[in-house]
Structure formats: C-alpha cells, structure tokens
C-alpha cells in the first residue's frame, strides 16, 4: 500500500494552523505515521470472497436487467390496452352516428315500472292516492252543481279549498 500521494502541500496547510517551524515538524509526524501504516499492511480479501462478490453482482445486474425489461413490457402492454379501448369506443360511436336508432333512456329517479306500466295509477301507490283524491273532489264539485249538499254551498266550497291546499302541500312535500 503506497502512502498518501495526493497532490496536497501539507506544509502549507499546517503553516496556516501553526508557525513555520511547527508546520515542518507536523508534516514530518504525518509522513512517519503514514509510513508505519504503509509498512504494516492489513490482510487482504480472500480470492474466494472476491469471486463470490463478483458472482453476486452479476446476479444483481441480471436481475436489474430482467426487471427493467419486465417494466418496459408492462408499459407497452398498458399503452396497447389503452389504444385498443379508445379504438373500440370510437368505432362504437361512429357506428351509432351512421343512422342507428337512438335508444330512449329514462331518468333513473323514475322507477322503470312506471314507464312500462299500462295503468300508472294502479302500479304506483302514491299516484293512486292522488288520483283517488281528485276523483273525490270531482264528486264533490258534481254534488255542488247538482245541489246535493243541502244548499250549504259556501261551506262546501271552503271545504274544497282546504282539501285542495292539503293536497298541494302533501304533493310538493312528497
């Protein structure tokens, strides 16, 4: 092991810390100290260890290459999938644009049963109630017209108004 050969003027460095004489002495201390280290080499690594390390690095590098390839394949596959999906959607849309009958789509808040019903008032309970109320009112109006309420027309009209207001309130309240 060679002693430190860095291009560095030790004496100059030490002169900044100590005086010129002390710098000379300190430089000599460093040189002699490093000479001792140089003369007493540490054991080196076994050739087996070096072979093992090299083999391990080769394995790690191969694994990295394989992972990089896999990542590239996944990336290409993801891009290809996105292109296929986009193409399929655009083909579908262009087919629709070429005179195919549009499908009417109902609002999802209205139950499908109502759209498909023959008799809405029967199939929808709430609507049935309102229809019943309206029929009662129609009967009352008819009775008034026919004078069947005993001549007390004003009371009947007030009752009707109250009933209408009640129906309106319940209707908007849901």
């Amino acid at each position, binding site marked *: 092991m060679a002693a*430190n050969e860095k291009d560095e003027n030790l004496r100059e460095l030490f002169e900044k810390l100590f005086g010129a004489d002390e710098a000379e002495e300190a430089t000599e201390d460093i040189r002699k100290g490093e000479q001792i280290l140089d003369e007493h*080499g540490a*054991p080196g690594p076994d050739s087996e260890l070096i072979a093992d390390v090299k083999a391990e690095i080769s394995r790690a590098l191969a694994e990295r290459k394989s992972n990089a390839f896999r990542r590239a394949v996944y990336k290409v596959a993801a891009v290809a999938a996105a292109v296929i999906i986009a193409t399929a959607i655009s083909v579908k849309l262009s087919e629709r644009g070429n005179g195919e009958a549009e499908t009417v789509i109902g609002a999802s808040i209205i139950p499908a049963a109502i759209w498909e019903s023959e008799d809405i008032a029967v199939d929808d309970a709430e609507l049935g109630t309102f229809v019943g109320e309206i029929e009662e009112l129609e009967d009352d109006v008819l009775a008034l017209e026919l004078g069947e309420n005993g001549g007390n027309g004003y009371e009947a009209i007030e009752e009707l108004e109250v009933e209408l207001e009640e129906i309106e309130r319940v209707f908007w309240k849901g």
Partner: protein
Amino acid sequence: MAESDDLGQIIAGCKDGEPESFSKLIDIYSGRLYGYFYRLTSSKETSDDLLSELFVKLVEKIGRYRGGSFDGWLFKIASNIFHDYLRDKQRQKRLLDGRKEQLESEHGRRQEDDRADRLQMALWKLDEDTRELIMLRFYSQASFKEIAAMRSEPIGTTLSKVHRGLKKLRELME
C-alpha cells in the same frame, strides 16, 4: 491521467450495468476497502460481510455518482456502511470494549511479536473517531480537503486530529 481516464471508462461501464466493469472496479478497490474495514473491526468475517455489502450497494448507487473524487465518494459509502453496521447491530460499545480487552489480553498472554497485530493493538488505543479518520485518510488516499468535506468539518480540525493521532500511533509503536 491515463489511469483516471481508465477509471472513468470503468465507472461509465458500471453505470451501463456491465459486469466486466464492476469486476475491474472490485479488483482496483477491494484491497483498500477491505483494509479499511479490517482495521476498524479487527475481524475478517465482518470485513468480508461489509465488503460484499458495499459492492452490492454500489450496483444501486453507481448511477448517483456525478463526478469528483471517486475514491472519496466510494469511501464515504464505506464509512456509512461501517457506521450503519455499528448502529444497526447496536454493538458499538460491546465491539470496541470487547475487541480492546481481547487484544490486550492476547498481547499480555502471548507477547505476540507480530508487527501487524501490534499495529492493530496500537490503533485500538486511539479514540474511535481518530482511528477512523486515520484509516479513512490512509486507505481512501483522499486529500485532507476532501476528507474535511466528507466529514463536514473544518480542514484545521481534520489536520489536527490526524496529526495528533499519527504522532500517538508512532509513540505506541516505538
């Protein structure tokens, strides 16, 4: 200059994921890095592990090298790995005390005259930070300016610590 051009090509090859380039990099640096780990841990087994860990990490990190002193950059990673090792295992105190006691008792029992072990024991008598700094300076061959930047401390502090440490090391070895 030709050497740094070669190193530049090797680094570029590593960035491209070439196993041959990593193999060359391992051949160039494994001795110094192993010495650095060994002097700091006093354990061949641990040094084996840390060296392997460093090179495997390098496969991931090499892309982040943006020029400048490669040695300094590499040894900064080595230093981080060493600190992670101490922190993660929560062995710092146990390791330092344990190894110190072990080395001192071996020294007392056998009076071993192995100069390499003498150096290791002398190193363990220095404080941890100084020991690491001296090893970083010696094995990374980085300039004091680079080491000070690596450790985020003023260059005067780095110079003083290394000077004091090497002076003490020389005294211990005499």
